[in-house]
């Protein structure tokens, strides 16, 4: 135990985490509320979950959101990984400053600007707003987040591994797929998950770039929230949180198991 971890440190962490988690916990608790009043406890009930599944509009929106999320996260992961490779491996090429600017700027760019500018692009090229445009918009936003996540793994990557493979005659592309990719795979997976949740979550950019027939879940939730807080929305939010939580937990368990496996392999190799 580190003796310098004082009572002040512990208190600030406990208070900080309470602040971070209490609102979410309350939201989940009140999704099981019998009463229609969200803030008055009227007994345990799951009826809001039942009524949720009979809400066709919400179900359609969920399906749209899931498809947009999976497609955009997958494309964004490929593009973001390429961008990360470019940023870490190619330190000198014309327009590198512009490129790194375009990767980092969307991370902080206010969503209203990104959304508006993408919409005007789609209008200018005559693309009808709908499923495709939301997906393209989400790819553009989330690939930058993937790039940052993968890049942070790539900079700590031991390049002597690649050099060894190439000295032994492996062509660069093969080296990438056999050596580099397995090592940075955890970062790529967490990049994909980050991209997926960002897409799942986005209201502003989707509102700008979506059209009729492609209403996403956040847009649906937002239009209902404006009319007031209802336990049904709490239930929808709880399911969304549960889906993401399960994904994150599975990913971290898989990560841990791979880590243990790797350690066992290393031990075996040393013994062998």
């Amino acid at each position, binding site marked *: 135990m580190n003796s310098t971890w004082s009572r002040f440190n512990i208190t600030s962490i406990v208070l900080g985490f309470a602040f971070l988690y209490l609102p979410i916990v309350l939201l989940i608790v009140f999704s099981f509320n019998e009463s229609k009043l969200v803030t008055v406890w009227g007994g345990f009930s799951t009826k809001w979950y039942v009524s949720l599944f009979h809400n066709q509009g919400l179900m359609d929106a969920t399906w749209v959101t899931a498809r947009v999320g999976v497609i955009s996260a997958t494309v964004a992961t490929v593009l973001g990984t390429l961008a990360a490779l470019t940023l870490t491996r190619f330190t000198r090429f014309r327009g590198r400053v512009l490129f790194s600017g375009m990767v980092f700027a969307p991370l902080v760019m206010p969503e*209203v*600007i990104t959304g508006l500018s993408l919409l*005007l692009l789609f209008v200018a090229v005559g693309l009808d707003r709908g499923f495709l445009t939301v997906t393209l918009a989400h790819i553009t936003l989330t690939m930058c987040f993937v790039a940052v996540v993968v890049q942070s793994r790539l900079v700590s990557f031991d*390049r002597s591994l690649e050099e060894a493979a190439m000295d032994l005659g492996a062509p*660069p592309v093969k080296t990438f797929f056999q050596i580099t990719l397995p090592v940075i795979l955890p970062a790529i997976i967490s990049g994909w998950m980050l991209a997926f949740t960002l897409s799942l*979550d986005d209201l*502003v950019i989707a509102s700008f770039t979506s059209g009729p027939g492609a209403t996403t879940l956040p847009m649906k939730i937002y239009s209902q929230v404006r009319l007031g807080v209802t336990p049904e929305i709490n239930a929808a939010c709880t399911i969304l949180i549960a889906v993401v939580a399960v994904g994150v937990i599975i990913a971290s368990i898989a990560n841990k198991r791979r880590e243990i496996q790797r350690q066992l392999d290393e031990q075996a190799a040393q013994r062998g």
Partner: protein
Amino acid sequence: MTDIAATAAPSTETATLPAKLATGFVNRLVIIVPYLWLLFFFLVPFIIVFKISLSQTAISMPPYTPVIGFKDGVSGFFAGVRELNFDNYTWLTQDALYFNAYVTSLVIAGISTILTLIVGYPIAYGMARAPATIRPTLLMLVILPFWTSFLIRVYAWIGILKPEGLLNQVLLATGLISQPLVILNTYTAIFIGIVYSYLPFMVLPLYSSLEKMDYSLIEAAQDLGCPPAGAFWKITFPLSLPGVVAGCLLVFIPAVGEFVIPDLLGGSQTLMIGKTLWNEFFSNRDWPVSSAVAVILLLVLTIPIMFFQQAQAKAQEQSK
């Protein structure tokens, strides 16, 4: 984008010429694909926004007069120059509403950033001083809320802050207040919302710079008779400055253009530029004016965004 092959892929001297050419081609592809994507979907849209901010509102679909086609590209852009006018910008300066919205947004984002720093610093510091075995868990706990929907997290606060909400119920029950506090639909609610939503963005960079710190420096200062507060301001804080700057930029820039938080927590009484842009676009359907609002917002944020990029590039260089 020409001298890629020269700088990439070490030890290609053993490879044959076709292999070299293939490597060069693959390297080019690695750069070009994301480059073109970002050019087309990130940079070009800004040019269009600027273009449309100079056009006139029209009652049609799309509701503005000139449009540039991508086939004419740059020449088409210049062909339309004669029809451009700065009416939308004059309009923005004449109506005090927009000026107030910009100033209010900057002030709100500034205050919220300072509040987030004050709330986030002790958490990051506590995490950095925590036993090494539990640090990964603490880090995970800070990141986790980031995975849950932003909209949901803001929504959760409505139920807490509203007049008959949970906070007022608790305060009334404990006898701390006799009248319910009006927090929802005020600027206070916006501050709470921004601090809450952006806290992980502040804590993570702070933590990463505090974790790297050498704590024997503080022990040395204290051995030499420096009081703990003095040691903090003279040693800890200056050393964590890169994290402070990164965290503040990550909070400040998006907060200026924030829409969801002022819309859901601030109500109709509060004024922020993100909301103004949204209303101009969706309610008034005035695309040229909302484009002009976006252009000015972007100009206002250029300096902090450039600082952010520099900080990122620096961090990237250092971690190598």
